[in-house]
């Protein structure tokens, strides 16, 4: 038994590249997750939460509140109209908008409930939790105290209509001094939260789970393309193919075509299963689903074929697949919401197949965008672009390495 173990260890150490991959692969993943989660909970964590601001009141009071919110280090404001904000949230470009409705100043002075509304993408419940905690506390600090003070004064005046004005002024001063320390516990009721759900039938969590998992599993599958080419090399059939008039490029693209077909069938099965088992309403946009299946399969196959163009051993295929797929999946949103990551990692997500595919499926089944919508088309375009770049790189690498591969 020990001799077998020793022999296997010798074989393992004889393949230096595979050994390096085995021990190196977990490190970038640990780095990734540490960067993503390691900063959370630290008091000096100043990750800005994006927030759209819509001032419908256009008064000194509303502008003052806007300025106060803008001064917060925890928020990154973008000021626009309510219609634009609704559209941005509907298309997934923004997470939430704080609307200061008309009558804000009047309500503040008369002690009425403030017309503040937080409209948000219901798919971003986790982000909203964080945003609400930032907003509620600060709103209470900026306007809540003043509002309560005004409420108390207005109520006192209503209950004591005949009081002498000098005495009334004194009472008003007493009430004001009670509220002058500011603070008070945050009152979330002062902020009305309105989820914008374009498609209440489909849960955003379900879309995330299905799309995120489907793409990640697809990437693992197509990475088998590399193993398939290596098998051809080991069996001598790759060399034999090169004797024929077929050519290296045709060999590679033939492999890619089969990978594409398998990928499309795999995606179709996963989404059909999700429809049957969990009620994901895929029927609402079949053409869109087909477009996304083709685009995602093309991008994922491109990854598979790129990997196949330079790997030399099965151990390399395994190591690189694990490293690249898990990294892309984590960054791209297949495994955790991207908002928890540092901004620079969120930008890196733009290079992952997972990000564009998940967003595309969100467009179809959560935001309910038509297939002609530029936002949806941009996701599809990016998937095809990623696939094209990877395919071109793969052809060049394959031709360069063909003799080593064969």
């Amino acid at each position, binding site marked *: 038994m020990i001799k077998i173990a020793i022999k296997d260890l010798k074989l393992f150490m004889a393949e230096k590249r595979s050994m390096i991959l085995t021990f190196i692969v977990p490190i970038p993943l640990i780095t990734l997750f540490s960067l993503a989660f390691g900063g959370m909970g630290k008091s000096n964590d100043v990750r800005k939460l994006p927030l759209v601001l819509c001032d419908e009141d256009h008064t000194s009071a509303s502008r003052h509140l806007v300025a106060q919110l803008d001064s917060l280090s925890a928020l990154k404001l973008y000021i626009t109209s309510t219609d634009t904000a609704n559209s941005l949230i509907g298309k997934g470009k923004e997470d939430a908008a704080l609307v200061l409705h008309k009558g804000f100043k009047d309500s503040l002075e008369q002690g009425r409930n403030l017309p503040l509304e937080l409209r948000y993408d219901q798919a971003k419940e986790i982000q909203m939790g964080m945003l609400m905690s930032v907003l509620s506390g600060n709103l209470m600090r900026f306007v809540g105290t003043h509002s309560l003070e005004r409420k108390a004064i207005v109520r006192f005046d209503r209950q004591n209509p005949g009081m002498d004005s000098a005495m009334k002024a004194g009472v008003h001063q007493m009430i004001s001094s009670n509220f002058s320390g500011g603070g008070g516990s945050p009152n979330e009721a002062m902020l009305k939260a309105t989820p914008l759900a374009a498609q209440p039938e489909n849960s955003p969590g379900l879309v995330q789970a299905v799309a995120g998992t489907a793409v990640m599993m697809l990437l693992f599958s197509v990475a088998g393309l590399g193993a398939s080419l290596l098998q051809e090399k080991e*069996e*001598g*059939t790759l*060399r*034999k193919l*090169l*004797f*024929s*008039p077929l050519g290296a490029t045709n060999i590679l693209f033939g492999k890619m075509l089969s990978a594409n077909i398998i990928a499309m069938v795999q995606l179709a099965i996963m989404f059909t299963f999700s429809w049957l088992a969990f009620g994901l309403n895929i029927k609402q946009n079949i053409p869109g689903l087909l477009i996304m299946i083709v685009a995602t399969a093309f991008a994922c196959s491109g990854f598979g074929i790129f990997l196949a163009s330079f790997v030399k051993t099965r151990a390399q295929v395994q190591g690189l697949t694990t490293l690249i797929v898990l990294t892309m999946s984590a960054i791209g949103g297949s495994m955790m919401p991207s908002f928890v990551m540092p901004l620079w990692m969120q930008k890196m997500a733009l290079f992952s197949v997972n990000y564009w595919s998940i967003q595309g499926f969100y467009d179809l089944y959560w935001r309910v965008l038509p297939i002609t919508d530029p936002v949806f088309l941009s996701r599809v375009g990016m998937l095809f672009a990623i696939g094209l770049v990877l395919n071109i790189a793969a052809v060049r690498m394959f031709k360069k390495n063909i003799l080593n591969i*064969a």
Partner: protein
Amino acid sequence: MIHVHNLVKSYGDVQALKGVSFDIQEGEFFGLLGPNGAGKTTTISILSTIVKPDAGSVRIAGHDLTTDQEGCKRSIGVVTQEIALYNKLSAWDNLLFWGSLYNVPTAELKERITETLTLFGLADRKNDAIETYSGGMKRRINIASALLHRPKILFMDEPTVGIDPQSRNLIFEVLEKLHKEGMTIVYTTHYMEEAERFCDRIGIMDKGQIIAQGTLAELKNTGGIRESIAVTFNTLPEVLAGKLIEVLGEACKITGQTLHYYTANIQADLSKLILRCGELGADIAQIEIQKVNLETVFLSLTGKQLRD
């Protein structure tokens, strides 16, 4: 049919081919012999278009290898030493695939597959997966897959290694048939008897060069060699081996514990040889007179056994 002129190929610091030139006529059965590392595989790889030479020119069936690679590929069939088939597919599906790569019309291809399977005695096993075949049967299908597009030239790299006698004989019959039908065949082998049986001409390679080429008779007459005396010793210390070479001269070559003495007059030289060995205290185990054959020619030219 094949014109090879001054082929040169290096892999890093190793010069695999140092200016190889030879011509093969249409319908010729040409044998390429050489020890391991002689450059045979590199030469075949270049002729079969998967390796580019560093220098030199090749024309195959009128097509220039550099400018018309596709024309060359369509003119050749290659039978590799390793069996290159898809084990999970049947013989029929394998042949259908490999034949289809040369744009043979499907109906015609199917006819050819049926004929070829019959020729190789495997028609009744055509739907069985290759993985269920014996080694000899796999080799037959391996050869069959290179013939479906009716190539003008067939490259065969040790096609009979490790197979049963029945398969070997069947392959020999096919080779003779193809030869009679006028196919040009370039054949590498370690088996002298195969080269002697089939080859019209033979090229002997060593250290990246063709050191001799010609018909079997021409090669046997190389250097006037006719016969050799093989003396095997019970023990042959290095000192003794050195003394023997010194005394017997260039006509003597030693491999292992056997001394080969090449002579044109065996009657005269046999007794002298035994005497010299006795004087030096050599302990003779066996003496054999060997007629000149390809093996001895090869040994005399390269100093190596073909199966080294």
